[in-house]
């Protein structure tokens, strides 16, 4: 594993981040947007792990951080899905374009 250069892994992480960003901006379905957010979070996780591995191989701080983020992402997904279900109950739709009541 040590023969994979850092730049490769960072490239994967960056790509993942922008794919997630693209999905977040272009999808109208809120569940898809949630998935895009998960992609962004995971790109960050890869970053943490890879820098931990290459900069401080004897320590585990980056890996712990990743585990935290995974946990929080799970909780966040639960909250987000609760919001989506409530939105569906009130608007009969999970399209963000339909939920534009909160404007001027």
């Amino acid at each position, binding site marked *: 594993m040590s023969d994979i250069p850092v730049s490769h892994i960072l490239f994967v992480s960056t790509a993942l981040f922008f794919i997630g960003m693209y999905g977040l901006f272009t999808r109208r379905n809120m569940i898809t947007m949630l998935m895009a957010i998960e992609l962004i979070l995971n790109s960050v996780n890869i970053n943490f792990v890879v820098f931990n591995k290459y900069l401080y191989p004897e320590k585990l701080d980056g890996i712990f951080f990743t585990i935290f983020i995974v946990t929080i992402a799970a909780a966040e997904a639960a909250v987000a899905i609760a919001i989506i279900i409530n939105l569906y109950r009130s608007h009969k739709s999970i399209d963000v374009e339909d939920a534009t009541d909160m404007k*001027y």
Partner: protein
Amino acid sequence: MNYSSYIALIPLLPLAAFVLLGLFGRKYFNRSAGIIATLFLLIATVLSLYTAYQYFFVNGKVGDAYQSITALNYTWLTFSENVSIDMGIMLDPISVMMLVVVTFVSLMVHIFSLGYMKGEERFATYYSFLGLFTFSMLGLVVSSNLFQIYMFWELVGASSYLLIGYYFQKPSAVAASKKAFIVTRFADLGFLIGILILAFYGESLDFNTIIQNLTTQQSSQFLAITSASFIGISALTWGLVMVFMGGAGKSAMFPLHIWLPDAMEGPTPVSALIHAATMVVAGVFLVARLFPVFSINTDALTVVTIIGVTSALFAAIIACTQTDIKRVLAYSTMSQIGYMMFALGVSGYSGENGLGYTAAMFHLFTHAFFKSLLFLGAGAVIHLVHSNEMKDMGGLRKLMPITHISFLIACLAIAGIWPFAGFFSKEEILLAAYNKSMVVYVIALLTSGLTAFYMFRLYFSIFWNKEADAHDHHGEGTFSMKLPLILLAVCSIAAGFIHFGEYVSSDGKALPSEFHLSFALAPLALGIGGILLAMWLYKTANDKPQRLATSLGGLYKAASKKFYIDELYLFITKKLVFNLIGRPAAWIDKNIVDGLMNSIAAATGWLSNLIKSLQSGKVQNYLLYFFGGIAALVIIFIYIWKP
């Protein structure tokens, strides 16, 4: 002896009546309200008589003078170690005397109103207002410091406003109550300034300390207040004149008297209480309270004398021409208070010089009885004929014998005929004036003749003149209306025989009351002359008064129009103040002040209109702004901003 156990009850009992009747009166005891309030006041009256007895006879003098006792003192608002506002009860001869007068007259009015106001829809409200007024007036007379007296002063004004405007369905009553309130408020502005000047230089609010500080010639406070001056007049004079302005407003002195005749719109017993016996003498009381300070400043005393003597004569002349009986009495009150004022003005401090002070207080005392008797008598008459106008009356002596006799006694008393109360007090005032200034004496003498004339003009017009109308009269009134008349008539006779100088004098020492027969002849002769003239003109219905009025021409017309003072005020306020100050101020307010505010509001509105479309409600737009912002920050911090 300890007064503190019960003294606070005297003002608090009427307050309790006010709270009880004001909160629950109309709902629960609209019919028994009168009895309840009267009982409360009866207890207060008994207590104040007991206080007077304790003060004058049991405790008596220390050395040879009556002391000023602080019966209660409660530190209310503390600003610093030296400056605090207290609430206290101070007993000295004048406040004890006023306690008796106020509670007694108020009790009489309460009893009288039982009959007079019977069947009123707002009976309980009326009694609660009476309670509030009595409470404020009692608080005023026992005040131990300037700030407390100012508070009660305003409370008295407010309760007077409520009572004048009691018949609020009548537009004239509403206008009168507003007028009374505004005019006295205007005067109170002067009072407040005076308080501030005196308290600032006297370095205290407490009466005794102020008097101590400002009358000691060597004290630093005295030197400070006499050396400070504004447009050539010393701060002491300014302070005293300003305080006197407040007193003149409340006491309806010329030229702040215009509210008093209009205040007669209130129920008649109220006029007897407020506008004859108690509230209107508050100004005299105030000057008397600060008299040691007044007495060292001749300028202020001269102002008091001039205003007093002008009011006395001026009001007496107007009273001769009025046809509304309550207005005659109102002007007569103003004239008598003028008497008290100039008596204070010509007085000196201590010993024989203090005669004017004693005379003023004596006249205040006797005047309270006979003037409230006159008003209550007028109330009984109005109750019978349902009119205030003299022309609707006449020949009532057979219909209402008790009112007739008591009214006659009061008229004799106010005209200064021996042996009625007014004779003694007026004689003392004239003597004090004679000792000081001939001009004042002559005017006072003239006024006393006029007083006799207009009072008997009133008397003959009501009770003699023509025969009574035969239309259905419902008798003289209930027992509760006759009893106060009888009691007050007894007081009007007896009050004169009290050796007043023994109890009340400027320095607390007894002042021997002398009686000079030769001196008493002139006012007595003038008084009898006035009565005879009135009898000749008004005893039977004839056209002599009419012819006399025509022959006097302009003077009569001017007097019957009250010397156009009201018109003058209207001219000054409506034409000058409104046009020269009010309108420009309104223009500035409307265009500049409001304009500034409006343009700020318009600019904000315009700006928010421009940017409101940013808030589209679309989550993805917000995301875009968010990431755009982060990207911009990243660019700035990495490439542009380099410390």
